[in-house]
């Protein structure tokens, strides 16, 4: 008698996946098409079709609005310009579209989930381990089943990205709301606010720095997934990294990799800028 009992979940999982593909494969492929036609493709078309100068101008404005510093805005815009110089502009736009759609989906899921968890401590005890699993399960384990269910390309990549990247947003939203001062909430109650008003008018604004930190993490993790997503045929900067590695063209891989880093820095600075409490227009610059 062996010491280890022969336990295996291989058979039932394989069987279940096959059944899922047979029963729901076609329906899920329609979901795939809906996400593609409804969100990703129009956005991608817009970004790829727009003149690069216009997009750089928009980025500059966003960067200025977030950081309130002309130098910051200038060098963040310069970083994106450099990616264009590498000849990677088109891929950059594809990657940006992928990251934006993933982030929007993550916010749509993560924000309400975070609020809910802050309200219901019992649910939180169950949900946190699930979040841990979502973050640590090797991505490829669910990427390949996602391909079988949704088809090859960008949509399974987006879904895998959302699974992976939504966790910090949920955690930090929940944390931010829980940490809102009880006295402040009490004061609001005494003015006769409804729960909804309390949430929208008091808790969410006060939790904003924490939520923005979560969003920042989410975007960074989405960018980290870009290379992995290219392993299931999502085009963009990740594909160039993968191709560079697989053909031993180290320079090409590094160039695309640097482009991802630059994009990450730009998005990071902008989202961090929005998360910081607004500085007074004049007066001391606070250290950061």
């Amino acid at each position: 008698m062996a010491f280890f009992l022969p336990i295996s979940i291989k058979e039932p999982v394989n069987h279940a996946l096959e059944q899922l593909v047979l029963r729901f494969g076609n329906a899920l492929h329609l979901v795939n098409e809906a996400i593609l036609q409804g969100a990703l493709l129009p956005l991608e078309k817009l970004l790829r079709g727009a003149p690069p100068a216009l997009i750089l101008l928009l980025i500059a404005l966003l960067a200025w609005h977030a950081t309130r510093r002309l130098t910051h805005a200038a060098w963040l815009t310069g970083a994106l310009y450099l990616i264009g110089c590498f000849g990677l502009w088109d891929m950059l736009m594809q990657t940006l579209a992928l990251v934006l759609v993933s982030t929007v989906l993550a916010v749509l899921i993560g924000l309400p989930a975070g609020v809910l968890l802050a309200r219901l401590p019992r649910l939180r005890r169950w949900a946190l381990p699930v979040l841990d699993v979502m973050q640590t399960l090797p991505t490829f384990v669910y990427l390949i089943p996602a391909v079988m269910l949704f088809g090859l390309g960008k949509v399974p990549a987006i879904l895998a990205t959302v699974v992976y990247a939504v966790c910090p947003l949920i955690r930090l939203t929940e944390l931010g709301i829980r940490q809102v001062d009880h006295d402040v909430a009490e004061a609001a109650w005494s003015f006769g606010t409804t729960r909804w008003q309390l949430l929208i008018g008091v808790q969410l604004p006060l939790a904003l720095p924490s939520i923005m930190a979560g969003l920042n993490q989410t975007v960074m993790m989405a960018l980290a997934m870009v290379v992995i997503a290219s392993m299931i045929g999502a085009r963009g900067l990740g594909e160039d990294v993968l191709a560079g590695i697989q053909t031993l063209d180290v320079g090409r891989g590094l160039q695309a990799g640097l482009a991802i880093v630059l994009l990450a820095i730009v998005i990071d600075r902008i989202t961090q800028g929005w998360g910081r409490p607004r500085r007074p227009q004049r007066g001391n610059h606070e250290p950061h």
Partner: protein
Amino acid sequence: MKYLPTSLPITLFSLLLACAGTAGAADAPWCKAGKPVKLAGLNWESGALLTELIKTVLEQGYGCQTEIVPGTTVTLETALASNDIQVIAEEWVGRSEAWNKAAAEGKVKVAGKVIVGATEGWYVPDYVIKGDSKRGIAAAAPRLNSVADLPAYTALFKDEEEPARGRFLNCPTGWTCEGVNSQKLKAYGLQNSYVNFRPGTGAALDAEISSAYQRGKPILFYYWAPTALMGKYRFIKLQEPAYNEACFKTLANKDHPKPCGSAAPEALIQTALSKPLADADPALVAFFSRFNVPINVLNRALAHMADNKLDAAAEAKLFFAQQPKIWHNWLPADVAARIKQAQ
């Protein structure tokens, strides 16, 4: 398709264990001298199975010590040239630089034709052309016959990300076939009507094909035999212009501006031996030169292996139980008898 890089580190153990006088090694001088036979641990399905078959024959039939050394194709070819390993079960002769160099220098030998009739090309599932009455699938393209017909079928093989064009599922980037197929798209004038879709990894390619086949959907892809999917599903190969050496060179050069179409040359797949082993052991060479598994048997075994999620060693055991005619043919009677006894 055999050149995918993997991260398997190559670990070479120098086995110094002598096993002089092992029973039954009398007719294999290499093994009688107590030297282990190191086999290349090929990491694709057919390569892994063939390696296990050889391992069984050497151990049970000739009383050899064997060891399987994992690695990528190129590292294994280099290791064979330096006699760090002695056998590569399935060598696609002439497809890689490392091999060509070693062969030119006479450091490696080949024996037999382990696989005859290996194919590669552009495939569609058979129900696309013939329909499948059992599953209620109507033939979507009964007149699709060759790659020249493809421009008319972009709507059938629609790329969801670019609905105006069709999708051709290429090899993952970094595989030799990826460059050839990209050139073929140019040569067949399809680069505007079809998206050159690279699936990123072999696993993703297999997953996409399996999913489409199970759902009975049309799909156009590059594939090759011997493989598990080829044994499991029925695919039809689209006709291409006959093999033409000059044209294939324009396809193999991925920067050639005006490639001309050509089918792939017939693959020469042999068992590769290191020169010291080939020189020292005529008995083993005699076995290797007869070593062959018919391709349909191989495809079925690979499909069985994939369906039941068996590893290559388990499938090899089944092979020896179920295919005595085939393996008896490789061996002298006394060696075959020893294997039979060991089963």
